[in-house]
């Protein structure tokens, strides 16, 4: 019996010893300070910053630490925004463990804005007007509390295959293409119909649901009223009209290549000339270049149906859980200043959301060799300024948007239903959500 206990203890000790040797790297936030303004600004502090994907902050951290020797910045990173979201949601639900600065994506705002007390108020009159109006409006609550500072945005233009345009007898020069597509979605679809008739099998765009995403982002109240109550899908005439438009365009007029974005088929479609245009936010340029290696003819036109659209974008927040509110706020403000964002842009291509940065020559002079040396910086800056509408996204926005996206995918990608049948299924799914 004693031997048994000895053995158990031995194993436990070995385990503990090994873990103790290696656990030196993990840090836990100092839970004793309840993070407020009384901290001495020169006191040594360690700030954790959690980002995902590529924010381009590596050198900026070095710079800040050099300028502020009392501050040590520890970077935490997740590969994708979905992973980061799971991580953040776990720690929010658990009530502890969040970093001093947490990067969030615009898509997460719909739920996070329901719980503004989980975040520190970052309102600062000195920073008024730093960001594009719709960008900062999205993180401002009705009471004027600001829960995040904008980092990057995803202004959209139209990317197109000049070589396929040429074969179909269409203009190839990007200014001409911009004139051609200038207008609203009907214009885009009509030109598309014309193209498909002459293209010999090449579709106009890659995915109905991706195009829908662009259309719905120009509607003021797509799925919910401004007080947050959902619009029953059966009564939502505006969205139904958009759905009908895109469904007709995609399947009846054969404008869609029927691909699900990011799937294997979609990746391979870049090499097999399956489609000629697509909605193109700044961060998509790298993806197209990667997938379309060896394909010549991609270009980008300074146009977007309906004027302008945004897809994606992030903010830096300071969670209430953290211990160093003031210092974190200071760092977040610095990181999201126009000068720093431009540096991040130069490092990793994140498109700035700050008004001053949009005038910066470093941005405006940028060209992209793969896209026929197009002045992408300038094009996207102009598209960013053309954005007029920021759709209202309340707590149920994504659940409701998913219903329509699913309906379009059933129709466009999977072909399991026709337009009417798929919409009926969406209505059923709406009822199942039990919102009204």
């Amino acid at each position: 019996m004693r031997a048994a206990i000895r053995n158990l203890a031995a194993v436990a000790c070995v385990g503990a010893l090994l873990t103790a040797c290696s656990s030196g790297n993990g840090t836990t936030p100092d839970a004793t300070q309840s993070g407020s303004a009384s901290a001495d600004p020169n006191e040594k502090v360690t700030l954790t910053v959690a980002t995902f994907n590529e924010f381009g902050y590596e050198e900026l951290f070095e710079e800040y630490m050099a300028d502020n020797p009392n501050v040590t910045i520890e970077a935490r990173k997740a590969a994708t925004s979905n992973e980061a979201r799971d991580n953040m949601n776990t720690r929010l639900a658990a009530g502890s463990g969040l970093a001093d600065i947490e990067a969030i994506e615009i898509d997460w705002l719909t739920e996070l804005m329901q719980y503004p007390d989980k975040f520190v108020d970052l309102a600062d009159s000195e920073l008024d007007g730093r960001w594009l109006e719709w960008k900062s409006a999205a993180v401002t609550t009705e009471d004027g509390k600001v829960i995040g500072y904008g980092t990057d945005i995803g202004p959209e233009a139209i990317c197109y295959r000049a070589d396929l345009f040429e074969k179909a007898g269409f203009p190839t020069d990007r200014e001409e293409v911009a004139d051609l597509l200038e207008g609203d979605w009907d214009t885009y679809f009509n030109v598309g119909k014309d193209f498909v008739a002459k293209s010999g099998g090449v579709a106009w765009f890659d995915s109905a649901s991706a195009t829908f995403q662009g259309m719905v982002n120009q509607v003021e109240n797509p799925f919910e009223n401004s007080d947050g109550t959902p619009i029953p899908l059966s009564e939502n005439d505006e969205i139904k009209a958009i759905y009908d438009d895109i469904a007709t365009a995609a399947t009846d007029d054969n404008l869609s290549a029927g691909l699900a974005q990011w799937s294997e088929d979609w990746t391979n479609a870049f090499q097999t000339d399956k489609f000629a245009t697509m909605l193109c936010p700044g961060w998509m340029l790298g993806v197209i270049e990667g997938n379309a290696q060896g394909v010549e003819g991609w270009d980008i036109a300074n146009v977007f149906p309906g004027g302008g659209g945004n897809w994606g974008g992030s903010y830096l927040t300071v969670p209430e859980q953290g211990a160093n509110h003031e210092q974190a706020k200071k760092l977040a403000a610095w990181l999201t200043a126009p000068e720093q964002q431009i540096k991040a842009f130069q490092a990793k291509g994140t498109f700035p959301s700050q008004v001053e940065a949009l005038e910066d020559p470093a941005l405006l002079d940028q060209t992209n060799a793969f896209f026929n040396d197009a002045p992408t910086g300038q094009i996207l800056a102009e598209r960013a300024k053309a954005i007029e509408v920021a759709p209202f996204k309340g707590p149920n926005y994504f659940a409701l948007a998913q219903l329509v996206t699913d309906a379009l995918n059933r129709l466009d990608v999977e072909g399991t239903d026709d337009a009417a049948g798929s919409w009926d299924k969406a209505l059923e799914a709406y009822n199942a959500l039990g919102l009204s």
Partner: protein
Amino acid sequence: MNQQLTRSQRLSRLDVKASPYLYISPFFILFFIVGLFPLVYTAWVSVHDWHLIGGQGEMVGLTNYIDVLQQPNFFKALRNTFSIFLLSSVPQVLAAIVIAYLLDTNLRAKTFWRMGVLLPYVVAPVAVSLIFAKIFADQSGLVNAVLEILGTSPIGWHADPFAAHVAIATMVNFRWTGYNALIFLAAMQAIPREIYEAAIIDGANRWRTFFSVTVPMLRPTIIFVVITSTIGGLQIFDEPRMFDTLGQGGADRQWMTLTMYIYELGWGAQKSFGRAAAVSWLLFLIIIAVGVINFLITRSIASSSSGKAGR
């Protein structure tokens, strides 16, 4: 007979009586700390209106359960889960036994063959999902390309529910068949060689030996594998999630399993922790029920076959 027990005899008695409980206690202690707390927590969550971020709402009793049982998505998930489960477990167990039997022979380079069949178990998910995406892509995938060459029409792997289930079951079988084969192998190694030799002396060939000697002696292991496959199979999560990049289970929920449904309810757009917890408990009960059924079926089949073997 009525002698006073000596001290060492008393200690020995205590040793015998207490040791079993002591030996099983590490599991139970650990379970009570890291297993029971989540269980109770989930049960507590399931009877509340609980938002993942917002936290605890009011107590709603069985409302979450009733709500969930009225959702069409719940039943789709149920259908998908059972379909994938049957398509994967049945071929897997059969193939595993056969492969184990082949491995149990006097092969040259035993280690190579034995470890070779376990290789799929170690391939990282990102590689598995990429490879199977290339095989099962609807438009540009390998299988459909071959089908076109053969003249038949392509299959909508990501459109048709049954095709999706077959593809996912293939991924699951790929990963776990070798694993189960080694479990059977370990059990087969424990069968005394004399019994085989006796059977061979009696004139039985390889197949007769397999059915009359190996399978009956493997009965407990077969039960073990059936139970663990049932429990694991009804909880399949990784493979269907990797089947496309969205991880939702298809626009029409063609291949969404119950565990994916739990994840969607709890972490997805609705963030309804309460509903997700309710589905978790329902799934738990389903697994117990199916597990017991499978256990009874397997036990009766296996004992009837050993009965037939006779002596």
